[in-house]
């Protein structure tokens, strides 16, 4: 189990993170070059905006889980924090609430992927493409969105496992 977790962390922190960074930097430089091209050469690629948008979305989608790991997705943690501060039985209630939150989040992500498969299928069937770039089919980006949610499922499952372990270990002690 520990080895799989290490492999997953390596995959997320070394591969996914670097791909996202490279995409973000690449899009930024690309956008800058387009400004220069338009004003100094009077030329621009009609497909540039669409490509920039979808490459950025790729970077963002695959980064969903890393942001979750960094606890950077905003949430209203007031009640959990308050219960934790009160200590004693309330602390256990906070831990239970945390388990509930992770479980519900996990269920949402699974349902999103489940229904998303049909969304991708429709996208493939109708051959949807970007507005100004005929060559840019949208279904690969739909798949990347689902991949981002699959990463989230794994991360939520890990958080849930950690929360359950915390409460059971403490209970045994």
């Amino acid at each position, binding site marked *: 189990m520990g080895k799989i977790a290490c492999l997953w962390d390596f995959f997320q922190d070394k591969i996914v*993170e*670097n791909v*996202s*960074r490279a995409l*973000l*930097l690449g*899009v*930024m*430089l690309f*956008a*800058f070059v*387009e*400004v220069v091209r338009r*004003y100094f050469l009077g030329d621009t690629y009609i497909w540039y*905006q669409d490509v*920039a*948008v979808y490459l*950025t*979305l790729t*970077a*963002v989608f695959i*980064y*969903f889980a*890393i*942001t*979750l790991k*960094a606890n*950077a*997705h*905003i*949430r*209203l*943690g*007031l*009640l*959990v*924090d308050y219960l934790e501060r009160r200590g004693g039985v309330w602390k256990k209630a906070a831990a239970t*609430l*945390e388990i*509930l*939150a992770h479980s*519900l*989040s996990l*269920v*949402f*992500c699974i*349902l*999103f992927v489940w*229904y*998303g498969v*049909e*969304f*991708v299928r*429709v996208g493939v069937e109708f051959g949807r493409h970007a*507005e100004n770039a005929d060559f840019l089919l949208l279904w690969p980006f*739909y798949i990347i*969105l689902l991949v981002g949610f699959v990463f989230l499922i794994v991360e939520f499952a890990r958080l849930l496992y950690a929360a359950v372990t915390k409460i059971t270990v403490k209970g045994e002690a």
Partner: protein
Amino acid sequence: MTFLILSLGLFLVSGIPIAICLGFSSLLYVYFYTDYPMTILGQSFLFYMHKYSLLAIPFFITSGFVMGRTGLLEKLFDFAHELLRWVHGGLGCATMLTAVVFAAFTGSSVAEASTLGSVSYPIMKKRGYPPSLATGIIAMGGTLGILIPPSWPIILYGVITDVSIAKLFIAGIVPGLVLGLLMIILIMVIARSKGLTAEKASKAGIARTLGPAIPGLLMPVLVLGGLYGGLFAPTEAGAFACTYAILYGIAVDRMRFLKALPGVLSESLRVTTMVFFLLGGVGLFNGILANEYIPQKIAQIIIGSGFSPTMFLLAYMGILLVLGCLVDASGMIALTVPIIFPTAMAMGIDPIALGILVVINCELGAITPPMGITLYGVSGVTKVPIETILRGVIPFFLTVLGFLIFMVFNPVLATWLPAAMYQPIFPSG
């Protein structure tokens, strides 16, 4: 509608990420109460994300983080300090002035406050500034970044409401500068009462620090000048700001900067992903609201109950103030704007003025506990306890609150500049 609001409330309270709260309550509503195909989920999640203008968010966030690492802020601060030595509390005023200039190339209040804190706090501490005052100035200075363009909460509001981001940026200039000026005056008054005397200004000092500060002073001129001069759109302005910052970083401190760049990109990606994920949730939630005509129903109820636009705005600002204690700027906008905006439009409230009011409220949210993220940013950098920072922030908070109420009654402060700059080519009539 009751099911939607109740489920959203329950999810929010249980500590689920807000984007998922919005998404899950929408998903359950679609499943149990409508006959829409479930493919609507993916479609709605991506609704706002196709917009090119949204790219301005990662670009400006990155430019702020990059600039924080280049050491340019220190140079700006040195120059501002030399320039304002002669006033009471000159060091504090210099911090605020630096914040105003730095706000013009960063969209993030935490990035600004943290960088500002690491630069100005040690000097203020050495010069005898009470920690509460010093950190209060830094926290308030940091939040100015939210209002003075470019600002990602403004972009977020523009994307959700489909209001021109360029016009919103322009609308933020005057209130941002007035607020900056009010803060400087307030610092002078507090400094005088605390016996922080003025120093002697030196022309040599100003001349010595001006040179290194020029790239920093030039940046807002180029970015905002290009934006308002029609040279580029907000997104391209962001790309320009970012490239400028990266090139400056490479030119000044090549190896150290390049080593720090991946970390900077990660910081930027974290904020960007948080905003985009939230926007996905808003897309889902907003899709349901629109399909079920919920904002229209709310508008009918509010207008029918005899609320005047001013009363409505004051009530909305009150709700935002409370919400600001619980969530950050993105949460405040995501949770309220989709519901409130159609009502506000039905009541004839100017969409640009409303945007600026929302963003000023976000500023207050950034410095109110327990969710005031700027407070934590400043506390992390300066190692001053939150309670001490809070004491220092109170006078600034009250001033911004007063300014917010003034703006509710005088929205023209936000609307006149965009109206003047965007004259119709063919006047009607």
